[in-house]
């Protein structure tokens, strides 16, 4: 084993006539290139949508397969837009069904070698004691910041509703949540309360 390299040529997208095969090979390469370039952004995008690393990688793979199957070539900008469109649709579908276990799609059973470009992207995990610092520093902020952040993140209340409850605008609530997050990021990163405050004021 080990000596037989994968061969990323036309047979991965089906056996066709010679001329057509070349074109398909070119497309496979273009798509593969596209993935290598945007893989990280794509996976983050899917993680934000799905809140689940596992599913995000799965959907990224599926999007790749779909893009390969797409019977057109086009400008790179077109393909990129398409890639995110496909990924988004797949993510929405997945949220609708959430049936991970029974979805053994073709991509997983028989992954084409180009799938290797969908690299593993782990997310940085903050340790429990780092998160202790996080929550402690959240308490250093004005009351509304803390309330807005906790309602949004811990109770899953939409910002529009938080706005109603706290008697503020939706825009304000979002700003509180963002500021809370950025401030705590500085504090977890080791800045003192006053240093973190100063950086916020710089904005």
């Amino acid at each position, binding site marked *: 084993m080990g000596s037989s390299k994968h061969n990323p040529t036309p047979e991965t997208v089906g056996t066709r006539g010679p001329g057509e095969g070349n074109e398909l090979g070119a497309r496979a390469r273009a798509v593969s290139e596209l993935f290598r370039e945007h893989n990280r952004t794509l996976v983050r995008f899917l993680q*934000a949508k799905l809140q689940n690393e596992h599913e995000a990688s799965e959907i990224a793979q599926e999007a790749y397969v779909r893009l390969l199957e797409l019977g057109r070539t086009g400008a790179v900008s077109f393909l990129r837009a398409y890639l995110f469109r496909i990924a988004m649709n797949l993510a929405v579908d997945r949220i609708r069904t*959430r049936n991970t*276990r029974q979805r053994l799609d073709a991509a997983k059973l028989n992954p084409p070698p180009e799938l290797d470009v969908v690299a*593993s992207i782990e997310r*940085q995990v*903050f340790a429990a004691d780092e998160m202790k610092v996080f929550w402690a520093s959240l308490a250093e902020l004005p009351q509304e910041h803390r309330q807005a952040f906790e309602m949004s993140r811990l109770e*899953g209340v939409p910002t529009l509703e938080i706005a109603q409850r706290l008697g503020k605008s939706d825009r304000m609530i979002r700003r509180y949540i963002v500021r809370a997050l950025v401030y705590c990021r500085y504090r977890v990163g080791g800045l003192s309360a006053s240093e973190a405050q*100063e950086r916020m004021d710089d904005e």
Partner: protein
Amino acid sequence: MNNAAPVAGKDGQRFEAAGSWLIRFHEDTLTDAEIGEWVEWCENDPKNLQAFEELQSLWRSAAEHPPQTSVPSKRARARPRLWWPLAACIAVIAVGAGFLMTSRIALSPRQIGAGELVRTPVATNEEGILPDGSRIEVGARSLVDVNFSGIRRELELRDGEAFFQVKHERTRPFVVKAGALEVVAVGTAFNVRRTGAQVVVTVQEGSVEVRRRDGGGFAEESARAHAGQQLSFQSGSGELHDAMVDPAVTLAWRSGRLEFTGDSLDVVVANVNRYSRRPVILADTQLGALKFTGTVFFANVDAWLDGLEQVFPIDVHRNDPQGIVLTKR
């Protein structure tokens, strides 16, 4: 300020922008153009994407490690970063040498620590592997306290729902506590749902022993449940109730829906609320006693509410700032 000062302003703006995108992802449905704008922003400067990643991680970690005040926890442990099938993946990668790592590492459920408190946010299930290799799947808005030692595999379901696939170990029983009940397994698969004072244990595979504890922690009553059996306990009646069920119905939550057969509406609503971002509120307590049979899809709670209005003498008020309020018609 120190020598980092010149970039501080820029960094601040970068984080601010990253945070705004994060909130928009969380709250809104972005259009293709907006997503394109975000991709441009991420890829124009690698620091932008990095800032987004950092805040995204913090955002997730905040839900996984909620503040400790409401839940006293004995320990502060870093979560081990080891992924279970790492060894297998390394073997696979060795074969495909020259290629990038495949995504299969990220595909595995995460490893859960021996003393971890697992808390899931609303509408998000989570899968994990326990230190003994058993698998756990935790429903949304649930709380599981893991307490493993050399002699005991113990977990407490403090709230919500979880499914366990237990790795066989003769000498170390696998114990799940939930309210007044204690479920003891050796090697089996079962589901536990805790809704307030009600605890329901459903066995999918093998068998478990269910014990009811009195206030002092002694077993007052115990029963054995086999595959397809369901034991439920309501602290009001004080009795273990035994029924034969289709485990697939109980386990539907792992596939995006909740299925109920003759469950009282208050129990149904409490479980739906683990998946609904807007809470459903029963304004009249009498409504809680109505018996509901049917399916609720997480992605379409609205359809279920429409159905309720037709089947029961209920009015649904969707515009209340408190949530979706159900009143008697």
